[in-house]
């Protein structure tokens, strides 16, 4: 029975491999193994002062760390029956949004996008993407950098933050910095690809070679052509 092993899986966070068995041209079995060693956070958090949880648990993942940081703090506040002040909640939401932007732009641009655009199979990576579609690559970097700025302004630093403690935030955000971020956010959004500018990098050849349709891509790229807004700027509640 033919067997195919992909080891290591690439353009993912962490280490992994898959092994698949093929019989009569059909997939018979597929095994996926996570090769990152357990790091035993369940144990190493046990017995620690509770305010260590937001510090330690975010080290589970260097991509979605803001989520781990904020969830830890919320869990403590729930356990204690503590309500953080409104300003702290708003700062945390901004931090979460910044984390969302960095995490998703990183995944999209550096990990997934090379598969979705028209690149040869032996060069599906961000460097090749940047070579063929430099504008797209630069926009991706710009979005990622903007998310980082929001996280840094609200979390104190990037890739692991320090500001959320049980009951509130340890630092605020000046009006000036807030306004700068709002302004930069609007201009970053303005540079995002629109339905017409993305036509050049639709995965036509890849999609046709695998029998997939481009429906989903069309939906993303053209979600709001009538309004002329970029797809990233479209409000999910109204579409």
């Amino acid at each position, binding site marked *: 029975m033919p067997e195919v092993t992909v080891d290591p899986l690439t353009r993912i966070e962490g280490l992994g491999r898959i092994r698949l068995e093929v019989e009569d041209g059909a997939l018979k079995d597929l095994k996926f193994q996570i090769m990152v060693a357990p790091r035993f956070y369940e144990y190493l958090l046990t017995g620690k002062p509770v305010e260590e949880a937001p510090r330690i648990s975010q*080290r589970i993942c260097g991509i979605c760390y803001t989520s781990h940081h904020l969830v830890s703090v919320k869990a403590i506040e729930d356990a204690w029956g503590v309500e953080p002040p409104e300003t702290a909640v708003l700062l945390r939401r901004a931090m979460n949004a910044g984390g969302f932007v960095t995490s998703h732009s990183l995944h999209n641009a550096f990990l997934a996008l090379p598969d979705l655009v028209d690149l040869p199979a032996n060069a599906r990576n961000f460097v090749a993407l940047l070579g063929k579609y430099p504008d797209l690559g630069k926009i991706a970097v710009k979005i990622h950098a903007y998310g980082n700025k929001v996280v840094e302004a609200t979390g104190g630093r990037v890739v692991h933050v320090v500001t959320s403690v049980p*009951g509130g935030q340890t630092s605020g955000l000046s009006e000036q910095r807030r306004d700068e971020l709002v302004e930069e956010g609007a201009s970053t959004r303005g540079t995002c690809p629109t339905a017409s500018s993305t036509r050049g990098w639709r995965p036509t050849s890849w999609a046709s070679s695998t029998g997939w349709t481009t429906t989903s891509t069309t939906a993303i790229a053209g979600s709001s052509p009538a309004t002329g807004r970029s797809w990233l700027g479209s409000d999910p509640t109204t579409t």
Partner: protein
Amino acid sequence: MVKLLLAGLAGDSGCQVAMLALHETLLDIISANELVFAPTLIDAKEIPEGVDVAIVEGGIRDDHEEHIIREIREKSGVLIALGACACFGGIPGLANLRCGDDLMNMVYADHKGTIKGTIPRHLEITAEQRALHQYVKVDFIIPGCPPEVTDIAHVITSLLSGQAPQLSRTQVCDDCPRERLGEYSTVLKRIHEEVPDPDRCLLEQGFLCVGPATRGGCGAPCPKAGNICEGCRGPCEEVSDQGLAMMDALTALSSQIADDFTLQRYTGMFHRFSYADSKISRLARRDK
């Protein structure tokens, strides 16, 4: 053109994300050189011979990772340990108070949150989380959790231009703008118990900031953002054990602090990132 390798072991990929924050500088480095193996960025499956500079994030926690780091070392001219896990074991080193097999049972079978757990058998866990240099020779370290973008750029660009990189020899306090008056709180405080004075040294106010025992050069972003230094950059240049240096500083400061002082409770606070590579863990290992 230099052949570059970028790999992640027992860590959280945060160092590689921090590298991405170099943005244009990173793109310049990658396009001016040749990235030959980097599972997070490119699809190469084999570690090629003749790597010039290998940058490795994460510590060693299983036989698979031990195998990878030995192979990388064998095939690389220069090996850089990137981040606290690779340099000192990092946060996962805090699990070293128990041995690997116990931990597997505890987390995958006996843990409160586990229902009908199965212990994964495809990995052979090592007894402890270790730093890279505990297995192979490491040429340069870029400490921090995450490492500072400026340090990453400095080390890589220095090496590429044939110069030896220099890490900061200061302590975090040297970068910290908070004022020290030499007057200390007689009680220890937890960060949520009191809003600290924004202009005064956190340690003087009774918050356990590990800045005095931690390598500077980061610009002290955490005390600037109102929280303690967690110690992610490991011991200062002239300090061999970060936690012991911190305990030494504390006991010298005030005997009153020692009232509520037990090593077990505070191990993680002084050695958050460097326990696996600490003198204390070596003593504990000898006792096992």
